[in-house]
């Protein structure tokens, strides 16, 4: 294949393309299958080796074979060639293969465009500040590659990087204007592929021993809350997730059928707050108990869980209100009560026996007190409980006596049901950490919790948290204080030093600002911001006008900069140019090679009447330029003033 000379790629431009390919594909190695990463690395290495040895690139049929093989591999791995992960894998593979086909500048343009495209794909996996910074740097590199491609060998590395940096910086005002004013559409435009929101963690809708303990080892943020007004005490913050009523001996599950509507009676003034949920792929909003006002697209279930109409699979903001003291379903339907008394027939005999013993002649309140006293006596709160067998509750209550919140909640509910008191497990989060820098309460996965709810006649469903009996610290300050040293919590949660904590607060406040202001810039927020800028009731037409005029202004400013000619610094040269402009008006142009004297000769021949005054200009110019006089400019100025118009 021959390439025209102007399109040929110079040898020293190729390393830039390798660097650009590496910078845009390498971060995908974190989440891609190992074989694909290795294949890409081998292809890239091969291309570099061929370049180094100055050997011929592989023939067409080898490329075809490689493409076919790669596609087959991706098809086997992802069961599709489309969709998010398979698409990204294809792009990475094509990028590396294109390097083996790098012949002309046109191929190089394809690589650069692919590189820009690959930058976007990283945002599928993370949109944090470090990702943003890394990608900005990668974009700089790709742009520098483009500059190098078109500048040819004459562009030195440093100048290329500096020029590319300048181009990127000049593009930033356009980005800001477009980001603010471009009409936002809340996607998706069409159904997303099934893997669009893979890998998002959170509370699950079932509970078995160890499930919450596992979640609690993560320091990831589950949601952030900002209260309007003062913040309620921490021990009252129960964020309700799924309510689990069905027990099969090991696992607690939600009841899938219909609940009668919740009857809620609030006993304290509502607290208003805004919550920003991280995606967890479940419908519940983790509202504060008990919710009194809901956002439009949410509903309240019969078990008092606030759920959204579709799963939370991206970061979302909601405005809610809650009343901390409430009475919930004082009269409950018999089927619900029956369901909350059921236990598997043949499991946990010792627990049943104990409960039967407590039940005799005691009021439900007394039974609850007995159970909590039992936990408080000699139980340990730990993230690393021993494994439990078939009669898990028996083993826990009478042998191991070590457990995490889900053990206590499960054991307590089992005891209550055996004692004839309707009871159920509630999953959710408890507490949170208040960040003094940005006034947000941060709730992490490590705040995941399970507690119990019992139904008492006349009082309705009442929350009982058996963990509070075992480890009051857990509820009052947080998990890090409740657990002993050496528990498998994330290091930074365990670090208690003040400066570490301050640093963490600051980092999280920055991240939160990033999430709220930058990533959370949705159609609603756009409307708010535009209203603050004085653009009320915007439709797409007014936005387009605003956008067009803002961009137009920016272009005009940049054009003015681009076309501005810096005036000549030397006043003598400036005056000389003025004299030349006089001559040009009389149709005598000074050629670049002409000395003043040569020009004078020509003026004598072509415009004799100009010769005399121009002679004086030349003399004054030469005296000013090369002579040693005190005030060289004045004579030159006078001489020019005397040139005939």
């Amino acid at each position, binding site marked *: 294949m021959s390439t025209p000379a102007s399109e040929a790629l110079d040898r020293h431009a190729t390393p830039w393309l390798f660097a650009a390919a590496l910078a845009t594909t390498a971060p995908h190695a974190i989440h891609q299958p190992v074989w694909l990463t290795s294949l890409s690395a081998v292809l890239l290495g091969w291309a570099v080796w061929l370049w180094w040895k100055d050997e011929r690139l592989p023939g067409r049929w080898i490329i075809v074979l490689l493409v076919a093989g790669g596609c087959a591999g991706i098809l086997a791995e992802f069961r599709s060639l489309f969709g998010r992960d398979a698409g990204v894998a294809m792009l990475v593979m094509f990028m590396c293969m294109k390097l083996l086909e790098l012949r002309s500048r046109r191929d190089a343009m394809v690589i650069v465009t692919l590189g820009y495209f690959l*930058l*976007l794909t990283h945002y599928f996996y993370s949109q944090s500040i470090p990702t943003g910074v890394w990608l900005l740097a990668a974009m700089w590199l790709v*742009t520098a590659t483009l500059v190098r491609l078109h500048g040819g060998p004459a562009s030195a590395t440093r100048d290329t990087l500096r020029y590319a940096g300048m*181009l990127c910086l000049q593009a930033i005002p356009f980005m800001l204007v477009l980001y603010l004013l471009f009409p*936002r559409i809340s996607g998706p435009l069409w159904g997303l592929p099934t893997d669009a929101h893979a890998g998002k963690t959170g509370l699950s809708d079932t509970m078995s021993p160890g499930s919450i303990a596992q979640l609690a080892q993560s320091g990831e943020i589950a949601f952030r809350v900002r209260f309007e007004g003062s913040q309620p005490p921490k021990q009252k913050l129960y964020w309700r997730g799924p309510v689990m009523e069905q027990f099969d001996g090991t696992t607690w599950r939600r009841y899938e059928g219909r609940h009668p509507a919740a009857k809620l009676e609030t006993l304290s003034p509502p607290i208003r707050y805004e919550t920003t949920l991280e995606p967890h792929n479940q419908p519940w909003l983790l509202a504060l108990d008990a919710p009194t006002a809901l956002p439009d697209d949410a509903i309240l279930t019969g078990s008092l869980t606030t759920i959204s109409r579709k799963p939370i699979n991206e970061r979302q903001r909601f405005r809610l209100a809650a009343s901390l003291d409430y009475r919930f379903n004082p009269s409950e339907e018999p089927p619900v009560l029956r369901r909350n008394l059921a236990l598997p027939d043949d499991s946990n005999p010792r627990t049943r026996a104990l409960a039967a013993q407590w039940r005799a002649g005691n009021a439900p309140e007394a039974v609850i007190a007995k159970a909590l006293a039992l936990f408080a006596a000699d139980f340990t709160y730990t993230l690393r409980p021993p494994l439990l067998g078939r009669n898990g509750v028996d083993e826990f209550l009478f042998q191991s006596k070590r457990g995490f919140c889900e053990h206590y909640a499960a054991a307590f509910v089992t005891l209550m049901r055996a004692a004839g008191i309707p009871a159920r497990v509630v999953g959710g989060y408890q507490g949170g950490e208040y960040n003094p820098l940005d006034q947000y309460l941060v709730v992490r996965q490590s705040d995941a919790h399970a507690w119990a709810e019992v139904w008492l006649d006349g009082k309705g469903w009442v929350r009982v948290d058996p963990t509070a009996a075992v480890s009051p610290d857990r509820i009052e300050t947080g998990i890090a204080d409740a657990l002993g040293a050496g528990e498998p919590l994330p290091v930074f949660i365990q670090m208690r030093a003040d400066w570490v904590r301050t640093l963490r607060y600051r980092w999280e406040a920055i991240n939160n600002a990033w999430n709220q202001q930058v990533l959370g810039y949705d159609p609603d927020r756009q409307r708010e911001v535009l209203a603050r800028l004085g653009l009320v009731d915007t439709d797409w037409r007014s936005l387009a006008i605003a956008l067009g005029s803002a961009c137009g202004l920016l272009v005009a400013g940049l054009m003015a900069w681009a076309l501005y000619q810096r005036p000549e610094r030397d006043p003598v040269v400036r005056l000389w140019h003025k004299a030349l402009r006089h001559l040009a008006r009389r149709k005598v142009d000074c050629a670049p090679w002409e000395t003043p004297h040569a020009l004078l000769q020509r003026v004598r021949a072509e415009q004799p009447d100009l010769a005399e005054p121009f002679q004086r200009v030349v003399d004054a110019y030469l005296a000013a330029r090369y002579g040693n006089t005190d005030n060289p400019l004045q004579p030159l100025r006078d001489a020019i003033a005397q040139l005939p118009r």
Partner: protein
Amino acid sequence: MGIVATLKQKLFRWQSDGTAPLRLGQRRVFIVPSRGGLLYALALVVMLIGAINYNLALGHALVFLLVGLGIVGMIHTFRNLHGLIIAPGRSAPVFAGEKAHFELTLDNDRHSPRLGLELEAEKGNPVHVTVNRKKAAKLKIPVTAQQRGWLDLPRIRLSTRYPLGLFTAWAYLQPAMRCLVYPQPIAAPLPSGLPTPAGGERTGDGGQEDFAGFRERQPADSPRHVAWKASARNGGDGPLLIKQFAGGAQVELMFDWALTDDTLPVETRIGILTGWVLAADAADTHFGLRLPDATLPVAGGDQHRQRCLEALALCRP
């Protein structure tokens, strides 16, 4: 003049008489997206759809940044040509069939370099040039000389895609420059038994056979005739010396249009005459030239050769 021609004249005309330097202004520089730019735009559209569909806030930001980069790239591509000063230079005569080289000077009075400039007079024969900051660059634009006579410099397309290659900016230049094209010489044996006006032998300075001593070199003497060894004596301080010969027969030739075969085409006959002129000049033989529209008396030297070739180039039989 048709509308198109008038428009072209207005848009691409050279200032004044075409010999003065020209500064490229806004109205002379044109810009359109290149093929790479279209690919880039397509990629941005797909990326924007992806960002909206997956609700990627930073995806939006990246697409907008790249849109900004495209606009900035357009302005910089335009700026790479804008304000460039082009001055016509000279061009040396060539023989038909060779490449004529037109010299242009590109002057950059800006504080930033201009890279990736491409000048093209003939399709597929571009010249690439870089002009450093506050510097001028001289370059020669090759044009194939096919016919003898004056060759006008065709319209030059000055274009650039620097820095990002997303846009092509170009300007048309037509400086008034021309290059003389000598006829293509045809090798033919020198005509024998030519009548020489001087008639036979002469003694004195023109001879070539017997060494007769040295004389001082005059500026008109060819460096080939300098007696280097003799000049280098006395420490090389003296003037350069020329060997003088005496007694040799000085052949003088007269190349007459009529000497060529009149059955041949005109251009072939001119080619044959050109070949004779070159051969005689190479042999240091004095010669004259008689053409239908011009006659040059017998003489020798580079200037005479040039005059003869010029006459042949412009001959209209």
